[in-house]
């Protein structure tokens, strides 16, 4: 065991297993998604991995037409910020026609095939 807090690897491993995780501060109970190596509330470092509910509401979104070269085959694509049920927020690609989107829309996490790590996160309308 080394003493390095591998929060990115923790998140990527979970996403590869179709799960969302954060980190919980054992001192003040604050949950951080994405995980961080130091508590943003109390600066504590006594932290544990926790699975979080992959559900939330759309805070805002955009449809990207001019993309970086590696995303050109996907463009135009929709990117949104989602507030999870625990209040934390994540960016993700939204797999829903833009005309169906509105702020507050209930969405849930899904995960793209043929991708690795954080780039797999997709949001779709909650059934």
């Amino acid at each position, binding site marked *: 065991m080394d003493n390095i807090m591998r929060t*990115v690897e923790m998140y990527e491993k979970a996403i590869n297993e179709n799960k969302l995780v954060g980190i919980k501060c054992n001192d003040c109970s604050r949950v951080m998604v*994405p995980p961080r190596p130091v508590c943003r509330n109390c600066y504590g470092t006594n932290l544990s991995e926790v699975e979080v509910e992959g559900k939330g509401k759309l805070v*805002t*979104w*955009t449809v990207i*037409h001019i993309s970086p070269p590696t995303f050109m085959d*996907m463009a135009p694509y929709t990117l949104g910020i989602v507030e999870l049920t625990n209040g934390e927020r994540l960016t*993700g690609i939204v797999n829903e026609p833009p005309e169906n989107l509105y*702020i507050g829309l209930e969405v849930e996490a899904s995960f793209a095939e043929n991708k690795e790590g*954080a780039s797999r996160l997709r949001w779709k309308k909650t059934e």
Partner: protein
Amino acid sequence: MRDVAIIGVGMTKFGQLGRVTSRELIASAAVEAMNDAGVTPKDIEANYVGILSSDFFEHQMHSAPGVPDYLGMHNTPSTRVEAACASGGLSVMHAIMAVAGGFYDTVLATGAEKMTNLPTNHVTEGLAMCADDVYELSLGITFPGAFAMVARAHEAQFGTDAEQRAAVAVKNHKNATKNPLAQYQKEITFEKAMNSIMIADPLRLFDCSPITDGAAAVVVVPWEDRHKYEGQAVKVRGFAQASETMSLHDRTDITSFNTTKIAARNAFKRAGLEPKDIDFAEVHDCFTIAEIVAIEDMGFFKKGEGGKAALNGDTAADGHLPINVSGGLKAKGHPIGATGVAQIVEVSKQLRGTAGERQLSDVEFGMTQNLGGSGSTIVCHILERGD
């Protein structure tokens, strides 16, 4: 701590400048600034250089020594400052702090970017690397995309619509017609702005600043020494920086940048001034919505009123608080590392009364706001007309 003066200013033409390196651009701007101050390269004790990524755009790392190299300085310490699009503002702030703290008496602050070597998609990617690589860029975020999400949230909460955003673009293009160093000197219409191609919905081409080459430089000295120099001194009254999360999604309020509020508040505190004391400002309009959010967060307009301020002329060159009279990033151009330095150049020229056709009348205090990433770094400066 010592009071500090801006004693010399210079900037290159902004635009597509062809085969030239960022260090040559800096040399041109720096020579102008040093001539203005009445100093030579051998008088400069230290240089700071704001460059986002000569690495990505020019295949050149370790760009800081390129400045003393091309200015014929021998062994003068040169330090690169990288803070995304706030690199230039932070370069100036470090020069000011070095003089204020008494480490040096004559310091050069420079900034540049040579961006037009690469095609647009590649530049988009290079800039997107200022976002969080793991949690944003891996999902295809771009900076137009990030600010589009700010624009949508701001519109939903305050009704800041496409017309209000376009008003910022129309105003800044109009201002740039009086700036011979600006990339564009052509007015645009609301119709043209609001029908331009969609970049990241709801932001269109004319909501975005262009891809630009250019450099700017200033010479910084102790205020008490100002009369030893030829340049007309402008007094540094306040400065502050604030930094926060790399990802936009980590902010609790997407319609506001807390970093701007904090940096502005701390700059005002240091200056002993309030928003109402400021006569004009150069703010970071990388996107039209960014100017709207900035002038609200700096305390000039109530939250939600920033777009209306542009639309009803409050922020026009003849309005009660002129914003981006230089043309701003939108029309003057946005060579990333140069931008924050060029803001200081413009405010200094206005306070000296040497801004030519776009000179504002009777200005005493000017302010800058320079933004990096999605507001992850903010640098503010407040300058005062000299004696």
